C-alpha cells in the first residue's frame, strides 16, 4: 500500500483519546455539563411526575427550603453544633496522631511497640463502638466526640507514620554528616520534611470525620445536622433532608478548600517551580 504524499496530514478527529489531555475550557465545560444534566434530569422527572413528589421534591424547592432553614429556626444552631463536634474531635485526634505518627515513622523501636496495636484498631469499624460508647459516656457530647475520634485517629497515625517513613534517607544522612545529633535531625529535617504531607493527611481524614459525624448524629443525637435530617424524616420533609445533605456537602468542600489554601500558604516553597 502506498500513501499519497500530496495528501495533507489530517489530525485525527477523535474526541476521546487515551491519555490525551483536553483543553482547559473543554475541561470546565464538561465539568459544568454533568451538573446541568443532573439537575435537568431531576427537574424533568419532577415536571412529568414520573416520581412521587413527596419523596423527590424539585431542586428549586430544596434550595428554597435551605434558605428558609438558614434564616430562622434551629438549623444554624445545628450546623454550629456539627462543626464544633468535627473540629473538637479532629483537633484531639491530630494532637495525638501527628506526634505519635512522626515518632513511629522515625524510630523503628517506637513503631514495633505501637504498630501492632494501632493497625488492629484500624480494622474495627468505628460505628461498632456506638452502643458501648453510649453506655460508658451517656448521651451528651461525649459519645459523639469519642466516635469521631476513634474513627479518625488510627488511620491518621498510620498515614503520618507512612509519610514520615518516606522522608528520603539522604536528607537524614546529609544532616548527620553535617554534624547534627538525633534530636536535631528529628526537628530540623524529619519534621519540616514531612509537614506538608501531614497537612495532606489531615485534609483527607477531615473528610472521613464528616462521615462519622452524620452516623453519630443519626443514631444518637437530638442536635446537629444529622439529627435535623432524622427529625425531617418523621414529618416526610424530604426537602429538608436534601437541604441537610447539601449543607454537609458544602461544609465538606469548604474545609477541603481551606486546607488546600493552608497548604499553599504554609508550604509556598513547594509551589514555585521555576527552572
Amino acid at each position, binding site marked *: 500500500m502506498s500513501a499519497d504524499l500530496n495528501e495533507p496530514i489530517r489530525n485525527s478527529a477523535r474526541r476521546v483519546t487515551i491519555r490525551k489531555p483536553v483543553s482547559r475550557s473543554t475541561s470546565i465545560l464538561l465539568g459544568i455539563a454533568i451538573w446541568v444534566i443532573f439537575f435537568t434530569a431531576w427537574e424533568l422527572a419532577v415536571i412529568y411526575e414520573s416520581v412521587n413528589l413527596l419523596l423527590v421534591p424539585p431542586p428549586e424547592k430544596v434550595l428554597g427550603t435551605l434558605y428558609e432553614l438558614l434564616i430562622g429556626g434551629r438549623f444554624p444552631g445545628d450546623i454550629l453544633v456539627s462543626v464544633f463536634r468535627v473540629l473538637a474531635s479532629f483537633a484531639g485526634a491530630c494532637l495525638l496522631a501527628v506526634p505519635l505518627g512522626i515518632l513511629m515513622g522515625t524510630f523503628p523501636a517506637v513503631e514495633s511497640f505501637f504498630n501492632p496495636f494501632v493497625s488492629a484498631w484500624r480494622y474495627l469499624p468505628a460505628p461498632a463502638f456506638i452502643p458501648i460508647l453510649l453506655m460508658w459516656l451517656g448521651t451528651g457530647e461525649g459519645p459523639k466526640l469519642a466516635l469521631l475520634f476513634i474513627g479518625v485517629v488510627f488511620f491518621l497515625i498510620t498515614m503520618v507514620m507512612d509519610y514520615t517513613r518516606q522522608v528520603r534517607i539522604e536528607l537524614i544522612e546529609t544532616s548527620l*554528616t553535617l554534624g547534627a545529633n538525633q534530636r536535631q535531625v528529628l526537628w530540623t529535617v524529619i519534621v519540616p520534611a514531612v509537614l506538608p504531607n501531614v497537612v495532606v493527611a489531615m485534609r483527607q481524614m477531615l473528610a472521613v470525620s464528616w462521615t462519622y459525624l452524620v452516623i453519630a448524629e443519626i443514631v444518637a443525637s437530638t442536635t446537629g445536622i444529622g439529627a435535623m435530617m432524622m427529625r425531617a424524616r418523621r414529618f416526610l420533609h424530604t426537602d429538608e433532608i436534601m437541604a441537610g445533605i447539601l449543607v454537609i456537602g458544602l461544609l465538606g468542600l469548604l474545609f477541603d478548600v481551606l486546607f488546600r489554601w493552608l497548604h499553599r500558604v504554609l508550604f509556598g*516553597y513547594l509551589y514555585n517551580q521555576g527552572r
Partner: protein
Amino acid sequence: MPSTNTLRQTDITKLIVERVGKVFTLADGQEINAISDVSFSVKRNEYCVLLGPSGCGKSTVLRMIAGLETPTSGTMLLDDELILGPDRDRGMIFQNYTSFDWLTVEKNVEYGMKCNGVPAKERKEMAADFIDLVRLTKFKNAYPSQLSGGMKQRVAIARTLANKPGVLLMDEPFGALDAETRWNMQELMISILESTDTTVVMVTHDIEEALFLGDRIVFFSSHPGTILEDGPVAFKKGQRIGVKEDALVMKGYVEAERHIMALMRSQRPTTDE
C-alpha cells in the same frame, strides 16, 4: 594555553583506611562478602577518586568512611582519630539532590554551622563566602524548587564546605546531571579547590571524570570489592587542569584512559556474553 595550578598537596596523611571489610548477611542467613581487605590512605589536600565497575562496593567504602555504615573488620582513621559514626568532619554529598526544600539557599548553607552552634553573624558571613564561591549569590534567597539540578548540587557543595569538614566525601555527585552541566561542575570543583583547603574522596564510574578531577585513582574490582590498582594520575604530573578540553589533549591522557578501560573490561563477568 592550558590553565594549570600547582597542587598544594602536602605529605601529611589525612585519612587512613586499613584492612577494611564488610560482610552483608541476607535474610536467608547467606553471607555476602561485599568488601574485602581494602587499605588506602589519602593525603591532605589530595583529590582521591574511587573508581570501578558498578557493584564493586566503592560506594559502600565511602559510606563507611562517612560513618553511615559500619565495617565488619578493619579500622579507619581521620587525623589519627578512629571513625565511629557520622560527624561534621566528614561531610557527604550524594548523587540525589539533598537541598532542604523548606530553607532558602542561604539557610541551607548555614544549616550545618547552625547545628554546630556557630554564632548567627559568623554563620551568615561564612555562608555568603561559600555561596559566592559556587556562584549562587544572585540566588541566595531562592528556594531549592526554583533551582536547576546543577544549582542544587552547588548548594550542597557550599553547605558541606562551609561546615569545614576534614574531608569532603562525594558519591557520584554529578551523576544525575546532563553532560554539559556535568563538565561545568567538574571545572567548578577544580576552581573551588584552588581557593579552599580541602581533601576529597569521590566515588564515580565515569572514567573521564576520574582522570580530570583525580590526583589519584583507587581502582576497585568486584566480588568481593577489593583494590586492584592504586596510583597517581601520572600524566598530569601533580598539576590540576582547570579546563576540561585541555586535559583531554594532554600527553598520556589517552593511554591512561585506555589503561582504565582495560581494567574495567577485565572485571566484566564472562557470563555476560
